[in-house]
């Protein structure tokens, strides 16, 4: 017998199932008022004081048949407009960086209203292009899917993650398209043609 490792193994994931909204977005599930304060309804503590450009990103999550899923739930996490992550002393105090949003039960569209993130320097001084991290869960998704939103009106040329995508046309699946002033479109395709790049990170 070799020596025994003292590390633990991560707990296995299980699907969030069809009723994930009860636990994470009670108002959406039809249970408004369950909690005094629901978590993640907006990434703003005070939108009027938040620094930077307010943006709205609209999109859908499509399954492998091209159907816009009505039950997808997404969480986002990002730095503030200055490139600082909330929790750091110098971060924008009006912004939490975290939001939860769900596909509309009728249209299958979601909307994320947030600030456009800044860029930041990661380990080794490598600069990332502005991006928002996403985590997608739903019935049928056995382990949450991680991806990122980049912006077509930013300089994405030297981003370390985008540069790792071998098939260059797939980079477009990570880039939100500008549809108006402060408005963007970002669709997520789980499978098949135009499949979004998902991350193991």
């Amino acid at each position, binding site marked *: 017998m070799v020596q025994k490792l*003292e*590390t*633990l*193994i*991560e*707990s*296995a*994931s*299980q*699907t*969030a*199932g*069809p*009723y994930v*909204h*009860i*636990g*994470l977005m*009670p108002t959406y599930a*039809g*249970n408004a008022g*369950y*909690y*005094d304060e629901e*978590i*993640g309804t907006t990434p703003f503590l005070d939108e009027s004081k938040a620094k930077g450009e307010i943006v709205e990103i609209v999109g859908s999550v499509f*399954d*492998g*048949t091209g159907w816009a*899923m009505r039950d997808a739930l997404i*969480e986002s996490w*990002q*730095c503030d407009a200055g490139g600082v*992550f*909330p*929790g*750091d002393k110098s971060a924008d105090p009006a912004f*939490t960086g975290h939001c939860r949003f769900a596909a509309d039960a009728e249209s299958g569209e979601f909307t994320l209203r947030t600030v456009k993130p800044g860029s*930041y320097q*990661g*380990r080794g001084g490598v600069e*990332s292009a502005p991006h928002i991290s996403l985590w997608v869960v*739903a019935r*049928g*998704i*056995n382990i*949450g899917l*991680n991806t*990122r939103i980049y912006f077509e009106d930013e300089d994405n040329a030297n981003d*370390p*993650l985008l540069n*790792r*995508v071998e098939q260059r046309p797939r980079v477009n699946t990570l880039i939100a398209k500008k549809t108006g002033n402060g408005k963007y479109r970002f669709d997520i395709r*789980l*499978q098949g043609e135009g*499949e979004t790049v*998902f*991350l*193991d*990170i």
Partner: protein
Amino acid sequence: MTDHGPLIPRNRAIHPEPYDPGYKTSVARSPFLPLLSMESTPSEETGPRFGHTKLGALDNNLILNWTKGAAPAVGERILVHGRLLDEMNRPIPNALIEIWQANAGGRYRHKKDTYFAPLDPNFGGCGRTITDENGYYEFLTIRPGAYPWPNRANDWRPMHIHFSIFGHSFGQRLISQMYFEGDPLINHCPIAATIKDRSQLDRLVAPLDFSKSRPLDFLAYKFDIVLRGRRQTMFENKLEGM
């Protein structure tokens, strides 16, 4: 920015298969192409903290929280408790755990659940808490019922409680389910069976725990949860040039 070290890469072999024909909904909802792997960055190594969120006094008491304490839910009273740890066997304090579940008859309080088991007017089915300085948490609830679901012609979910867990990094984000020791339906469930390594599924089964059971009041089940850890060696995070 303080560098706490990169996240330990996820061992995907212990997790469910994304594409699993036994669980029909996964067939069209699983990526075909490989995930893009790379070392974690500040976007995954940082994460939301919930110190600003006001948790209510009954948020972790599902027996009473739907009625704001006016009347208890129907069902077998249980305490679910455990510790939140990382892969380095360190407790994760001040972390948000949220749960949701069916009522004692197997019915969820969700506009989409139409199973004919009745709603319990005194049960909502969700709760949340923040782990203490030792990573410990507790929920008081009722044992959820098993229920049928549309998959193959006669599939049933074992009794289970859904868990949503935040560590301190967005890359640690995890949703899982807690099962109950001795439930014969676990062996017949296509969702449980998406985990191919039986020993990993067994780690989601909570044992009956008399050490926390309160006589003449409730039984207890213990459910420890492990999230990804972070790597740090003597050769990392040194000043430039060293």
